[in-house]
């Protein structure tokens, strides 16, 4: 009764409280998604510009300093302003309350503040494009002394804004993270035990925990960087009479940076694990194994950070140790990938667009994971470090977990956001063309990396040794431009379907988890006059004795409030 009154109250809340300063988790999820997609497009266009420059350096589209700035901002934006808001902000906000049968997050006001802090950080990082000297150009990892000394890059305000924007973005994700962890533990519907939580909820919880447990040292490190740059301290800088430790930044950055890789990887794996059982009409294979091995990988991710620093002057003995932990960490992901594959095995697959996106993400992630083994071995890394091989490797991982699983998630949960379905045909064309173009762009980069193409060079024309591969690099540039242009299909599909897509029923995919029991789109506070009650495990497809004549059993049902 009271909830109904609250829902009516919400309708009277006015435009600003409904669409701008909303505390509703679904609206905040949409805000995060749109903000993230904007930066994905923007970061993609930056890549388009610098790859165009690389294809024809003699045209001087960019000067070398500007080229570095664009490469830096592409990395920064894609990790911190695309992956983080979408994989945590969007996935977490949209799925957690709906899937666990809650009416909203545990702290709705904190949730709203989280998004608006993120929005301010977006404004700050965008402002860095318009200050004198341009945006930061020292690489997205901001290694000292390049980042701490203005004279080396000629960028002054760009780095200040970069650091402040990053600190604000971390604050926003921390606020969101508290919600993502607390909500599943305290607001679950009756019957929703921890081992009945859908896998994507587990993944967002684990990712948020990893983030909270790793980001502190980098926040401290970022302030030390600002001190070095603006106050003249010597935390990282070394001069004739002052001592500092440039490696300290790398330690602080990668102690955060490697767990961060899993922060933006495992929610993506969670989405794939949601879609695979529904597409194969089979229960998820090894539900508990996936959860426990992910937790194991999360713990281990705090002990591998120095594999980013093998040639930074690390003690070889330490390098061996980190090499071993790095190779061990591939075991959990092998288990997860095998479990996903066994979910598909023998299933009667439904090739809808969401499944195509998820399947392509799965395939691409496997290649990314396998090439990581080569980089994790110290011996191979000496040759491959800082080359296009590394670039190809992490794009294979991150494009799968961030970009493709975002497409999959948007396609999948579009009805719960807008009450409509995205166009299947356009989505399929987009999925297939993206998959092929992505491989055409990044597979040659493995070869280029072996050949000795070092990252972050504005032109390779002056290196005679590499001239034999110049055609391949140009080929990559052309395919890369096409890959970015194809993404406009998604932009078109997104906005077109939002306005004119087919109206969705409550459960268009015949999926089991709780969000499909709510109407599409769910009202404010999600469940109206009913109370969700959970009776089963999350993925009961193809039951032996179907209770309702369908080939799936919904995880729970809605009880009417008296």
């Amino acid at each position, binding site marked *: 009764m009271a909830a109904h009154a609250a829902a009516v109250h919400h309708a009277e809340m006015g435009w600003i409280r409904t669409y701008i300063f909303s505390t509703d988790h679904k609206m905040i999820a949409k805000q995060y998604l749109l903000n993230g997609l904007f930066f994905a497009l923007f970061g993609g266009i930056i890549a388009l510009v610098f790859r165009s420059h690389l294809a024809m350096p003699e045209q001087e589209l960019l000067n070398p300093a500007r080229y570095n700035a664009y490469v830096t901002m592409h990395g920064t934006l894609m990790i911190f302003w695309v992956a983080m808001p979408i994989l945590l902000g969007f996935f977490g906000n949209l799925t957690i309350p709906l899937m666990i049968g*809650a009416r909203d997050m545990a702290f*709705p*006001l904190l949730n709203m503040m989280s998004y608006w802090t993120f929005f301010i950080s977006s404004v700050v990082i965008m402002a860095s494009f318009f200050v004198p000297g341009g945006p930061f150009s020292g690489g997205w990892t901001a290694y000292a002394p390049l980042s701490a000394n203005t004279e080396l890059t000629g960028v002054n305000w760009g780095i200040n804004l970069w650091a402040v924007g990053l600190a604000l973005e971390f604050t926003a994700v921390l606020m969101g993270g508290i919600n993502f962890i607390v909500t599943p533990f305290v*607001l679950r519907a009756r019957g929703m035990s921890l081992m009945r939580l859908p896998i994507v909820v587990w993944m967002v919880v684990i990712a948020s925990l990893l983030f909270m447990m790793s*980001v502190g040292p980098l926040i*401290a490190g970022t302030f030390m960087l600002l001190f070095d740059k603006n106050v003249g301290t010597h935390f990282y800088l070394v001069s004739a009479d002052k*001592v500092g*430790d440039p490696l300290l930044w790398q330690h602080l950055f990668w102690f955060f940076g490697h767990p961060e890789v899993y922060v933006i990887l495992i929610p993506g794996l969670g989405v794939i694990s949601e879609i695979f059982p529904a597409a194969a009409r089979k229960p998820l294979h090894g539900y508990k194994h996936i959860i426990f091995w992910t937790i194991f990988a999360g713990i281990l991710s705090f002990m591998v950070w120095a594999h980013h620093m093998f040639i930074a002057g690390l003690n070889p003995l330490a390098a061996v140790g980190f090499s071993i932990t790095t190779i061990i960490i591939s075991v959990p992901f092998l288990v997860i990938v095998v479990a996903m594959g066994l979910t598909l095995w023998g299933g009667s697959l439904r090739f809808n667009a969401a499944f195509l996106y998820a399947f392509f993400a799965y395939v691409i992630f496997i290649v990314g994971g396998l090439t990581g083994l080569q980089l994790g071995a110290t011996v191979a890394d000496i040759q491959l470090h800082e080359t296009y091989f590394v670039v190809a490797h992490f794009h294979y991982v991150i494009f799968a977990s961030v970009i493709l699983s975002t497409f999959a998630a948007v396609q999948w949960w579009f009805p719960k956001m807008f009450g409509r379905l995205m166009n299947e045909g356009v989505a399929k064309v987009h999925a297939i063309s993206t998959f092929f173009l992505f491989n055409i762009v990044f597979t040659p980069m493995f070869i280029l990396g072996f050949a000795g193409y070092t990252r972050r060079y504005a032109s390779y024309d002056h290196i005679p040794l590499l001239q034999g591969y110049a055609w391949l690099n140009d080929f990559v540039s052309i395919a890369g431009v096409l890959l970015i242009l194809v993404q406009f299909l998604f932009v078109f599909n997104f906005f077109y379907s939002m306005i004119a897509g087919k109206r969705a029923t409550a459960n268009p995919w015949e999926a089991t988890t709780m969000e499909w029991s709510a109407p599409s789109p769910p009202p404010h*506070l999600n469940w109206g006059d009913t*109370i969700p009650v959970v009776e089963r495990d999350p993925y009961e497809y193809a039951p032996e004795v179907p209770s309702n004549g369908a080939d799936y059993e919904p995880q729970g049902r809605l009880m009417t409030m008296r």
Partner: protein
Amino acid sequence: MAHAQAHSLEHVEPTNIGPPKLGMWLFLSGEVVLFGGVIMTIVLFRISFPGWKEASEHTNPIIGSVNTFNLLTSSMLVALAHKMSATGNHGLSKLCILGCLAFGILFLVLKWAIEWPVEIMKGYTIHEGPFWQLYYAATGLHAVHVLIGLIAFTVILILYMGKWRPNFTLEATALYWHFVDIVWLFLWPLFYLS
């Protein structure tokens, strides 16, 4: 908003820790990692660079130790304030918060108005090598945390003077205050007693 929270709580499975408390512990665990990074940096610099011991002899261990006493006492008082307000003894509880504020302000006055200016006048600025830059950065970060805690207690005390009665807010701020206290117990030996 308050509405939404109340309704989402109505089908909570019984847990022995409420959402705000769990959230507060998570926030504090993030803070632990933040100061963990700072303390790790202190240890690293101490091992890597000579001259740490000589530099640390120029700090003022008396002020450092008095400040330790200040923080520990205010921590005790805030624990008492929580206990008093839980048993309905509101007058004493307000007095304890006032005492906690007084000791906290004393800490900041000693730190920012006496200790730092004296050291800077002696020439030990933030530019004087690894010890001093970490000294100012780490104790400064800690002092900012103290300041935030004091602001929170002031707001609580003002509200408390009126009709408002402390609920979880006082306990959460007390948790934070104990955390700030514990951080100081690490910084104190690292800078003053080495």
